[in-house]
């Protein structure tokens, strides 16, 4: 399918079937694109039927390119989103999943569109979001606690990646990142040194939980009243809850407001207090510090991976290739953080 009108026509046909009323696509605008998945903002209107009226939606679909390691398929992401919605987590309401190739050729799903700001650089800086920044640490803590309470088996999420048998979530995550690093065939002594420390100090986690896997500023929708929703669930997996609590503290995810350890918007303590008050586990600072270091390692490898997607010819993107020169930021952070732990 090549044209926008063809896309619209097929979507209207599908939506008319699922809404039970003739549905028109009023507008369609691409939000993000990539080699493996796309997001579109779609405005529709259903005439008659139980869904009569206007709907502001987001369409997420696979592009058929190389799926990133460990990322959920669109169908799995839809099921994950549904489980989160049913568990009372603040997420975009999932609406319809389509796996029939006759519609848009690839699996896709539709969810309600959240209003607000999601760009990290803006969330940490906009004067109009000052009150939101004050509220966010507590709100994020509460949502993290709800996410970690979801029972993956009861919710039918047996497809979620899980730690290898006889291996902690930390060790499993490290092995995957280390394998990825090795495949690039480039030496990165700072990363290799960090890897030795991470392997030697990996904490155990006797009761892993469902973790979001990319919980941070950048993956939350924010309005003047604070949190509107948590999105981008494609890295959800079974793991150490500390991973989700430390990842939003990784320096890169402070978007230049580095003094505010939680995502450039607030204090880690407020986030953790709210997490525990909402029923989350109390986590030792040592374990959180570990996972922040592990997060920097993961993102460093992620930067190299993104650069390689361009360098290998898989995509054409000056933005992705430039990430290869940002790896050094994570390398410096790793050396600093590990040294500080060792000389404590």
């Amino acid at each position: 399918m090549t044209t926008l009108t063809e896309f619209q026509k097929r979507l209207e046909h599908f939506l008319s079937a699922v809404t039970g009323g003739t549905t028109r696509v009023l507008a369609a605008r691409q939000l993000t694109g990539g080699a493996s998945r796309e997001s579109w903002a779609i405005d529709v209107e259903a005439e008659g039927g139980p869904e009569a009226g206007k709907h502001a939606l987001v369409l997420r679909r696979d592009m058929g390119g190389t799926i990133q390691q460990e990322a959920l398929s669109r169908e799995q992401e839809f099921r994950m989103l549904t489980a989160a919605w049913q568990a009372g987590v603040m997420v975009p309401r999932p609406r319809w999943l389509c796996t029939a190739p006759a519609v848009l050729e690839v699996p896709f799903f539709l969810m309600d569109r959240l209003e607000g700001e999601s760009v990290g650089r803006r969330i940490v800086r906009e004067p109009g979001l000052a009150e939101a920044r004050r509220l966010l640490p507590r709100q994020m803590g509460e949502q993290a606690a709800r996410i970690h309470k979801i029972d993956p088996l009861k919710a039918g999420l047996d497809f979620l990646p899980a730690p290898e048998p006889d291996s902690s979530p930390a060790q499993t995550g490290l092995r995957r990142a280390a394998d990825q690093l090795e495949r690039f065939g480039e030496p990165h002594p700072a990363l290799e040194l960090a890897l030795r420390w991470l392997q030697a100090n990996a904490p155990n986690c006797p009761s892993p939980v469902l973790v979001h896997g990319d919980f941070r500023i950048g993956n939350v929708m924010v309005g003047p009243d604070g949190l509107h929703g948590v999105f981008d669930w494609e890295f959800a997996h079974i793991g150490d809850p500390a991973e989700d609590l430390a990842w939003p503290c990784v320096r890169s995810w402070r978007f230049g407001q580095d003094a505010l350890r939680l995502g450039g918007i607030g204090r880690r303590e407020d986030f953790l207090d709210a997490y525990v008050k909402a029923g989350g586990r109390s986590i030792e600072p040592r374990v959180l510090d570990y996972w922040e270091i592990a997060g920097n390692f993961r993102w460093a490898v992620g930067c190299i991976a993104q650069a390689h997607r361009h360098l290998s010819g898989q995509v054409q993107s000056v933005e992705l290739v430039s990430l290869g020169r940002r790896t050094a930021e994570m390398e410096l952070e790793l050396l600093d953080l590990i040294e500080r732990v060792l000389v404590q």
Partner: protein
Amino acid sequence: MNDRPNTAELIAAARLYLEQELIPTLTDARLRFQTLVAANVLAIAERDLATEEAHLVEEWRQLSKLLNLADTVPEQLSALRQGVLEKNRLLRQGILAGDFDEQSRFLGLCRQLRTIVERKLEVANPRYLAGIRSERAARQ
């Protein structure tokens, strides 16, 4: 030899065009962002050209010392690049084999690597590096 403008001057001219003439006209947020990235990429390339040889020489000397090698710095840039890459490979092997696991050796290597990584950041993002250095100084 090629005539002027030299490589650095070519890149600077392209970068200045983007920054001063094109970017101010762009209203589409995504296009503007991508073009800013492109201009920044050119700035990195300029800094890289200006410092590559000197930085490689320093890295060569540091890595030779770490690896206990007594070799002389090559004159040719291509040999210098290849040589530093090979030393990094050797260092990587040593690290993964556990040669630096003992705490004082680990910390020693940490500090050496910090110098090398900061050199990379002087090229890739000098403003970011300056911010990290101020933060570090404030912590003392």
